[in-house]
């Protein structure tokens, strides 16, 4: 086989292997010298790198392996990452509503209103990107203050907090 054919056979082997393959093993299978294969590998690596190929070749010690080009990671995520749609639970929604109307607000103040501890809901709301930490309150213990985020506005389809329905004092 010429160099080009060896490159193709090598890619075929590495593709199915998935894992790293010993260069010596590949050389034996392809019936060429290890040194010669090493030279071809260097050439192929460079070729793939320079062309921005979807799948790159990497050396890992005395092994070689195919890996996806990090440049295309967002497309991989988008195609393959399963998406789970969820609704906010009532308790998350309540915590969020209090933060929305009373921001900036401390956890203690939220808990005073809700009458239950809110560590968990606050952590989840932060993780979902709906609220964020916004400095500390200048009071005893300097508790953390929370505000809503732009993601919050986007999620509820409003341009600013002014669009929140006004609370009719009962």
């Amino acid at each position: 086989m010429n160099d080009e054919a060896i490159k193709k056979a090598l890619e075929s082997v590495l593709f199915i292997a998935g894992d790293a393959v010993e260069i010596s093993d590949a050389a034996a299978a392809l019936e060429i010298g290890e040194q010669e294969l090493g030279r071809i590998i260097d050439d192929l690596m460079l070729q793939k790198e320079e062309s921005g190929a979807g799948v790159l070749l990497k050396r890992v010690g005395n092994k070689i392996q195919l890996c996806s080009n990090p440049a295309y990671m967002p497309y991989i995520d988008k195609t393959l990452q399963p998406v789970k749609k969820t609704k906010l639970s009532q308790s998350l929604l309540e915590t969020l509503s209090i933060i929305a109307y009373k921001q900036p607000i401390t956890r203690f103040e939220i808990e005073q209103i809700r009458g239950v501890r809110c560590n968990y809901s606050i952590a989840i709301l932060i993780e979902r990107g709906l609220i964020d930490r916004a400095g500390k309150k200048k009071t005893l213990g300097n508790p953390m203050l929370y505000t809503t985020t732009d993601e919050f506005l986007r999620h509820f389809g409003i341009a600013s907090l002014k669009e929140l329905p006004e609370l009719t004092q009962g």
Partner: protein
Amino acid sequence: MDDNEYKVQIEQFEGPLDLLLHLIGKARIDIEEIFVSKVTGQYLAYVSSIQYLPLDRASEFIEMAAILVYIKSRMILPSDDGDDELEEDPEQELISRLKTYKTFKEAAEAMRAFEECALCAYYKLPEEVFDERVELEEMSLQSLYEAYAEAMARIPDTEPEHIEEVEIRHDIFTIKERAKHILRAVNEFGSATFFSLFSDARSRLEVAVTFIALLELIHENVVSIRQSDFYEDIHITKVSEEMAG
């Protein structure tokens, strides 16, 4: 042919139609000629070996034998005029079944070639499964508003006093008083466990002050602490006078 030879041969056929096709092929005749050839007789000879086949397979071969015998008997007996034209001609029906079967047998052979080629291509295992990406479903502003209104409606009117109460309690716990509490517990049983110190705590402030008092006692070498393993309860014992001295 002896019985053993029948057995070996009949087993390699997929069923009576397969065997008939084989016999037709061997006799180098057209399917249409099956009833004027020796093929049906050969078939019956094969089927006589059937005692070696499992019953469910054997029944299929025997059923076909019955059909063949019936067709032969019809050819020998003079037919009642008129009647025959109404009922299906079993001869033509069998010929048509043989043709259909032959078509699919040939298709299967062609597919075998595809299969052989396709089996030379390998597929790669998927990489590790990705974590789920959680996406929130659209929610209405109305639901947000309602949640807030509901939460606000639940607040007792005495809210300001309630907070003041907490602040008054502030002075109840002093490090000195809490240190005494710890020593009382340690003295009573010779040692106390860390969690038991907080078991009757009524507020976060009390926990905090008790904890500071404990640190103070350790610092002054009045008590020592010991933990047998990670996350285990911590044992607090009084440091003996000599060691403390």
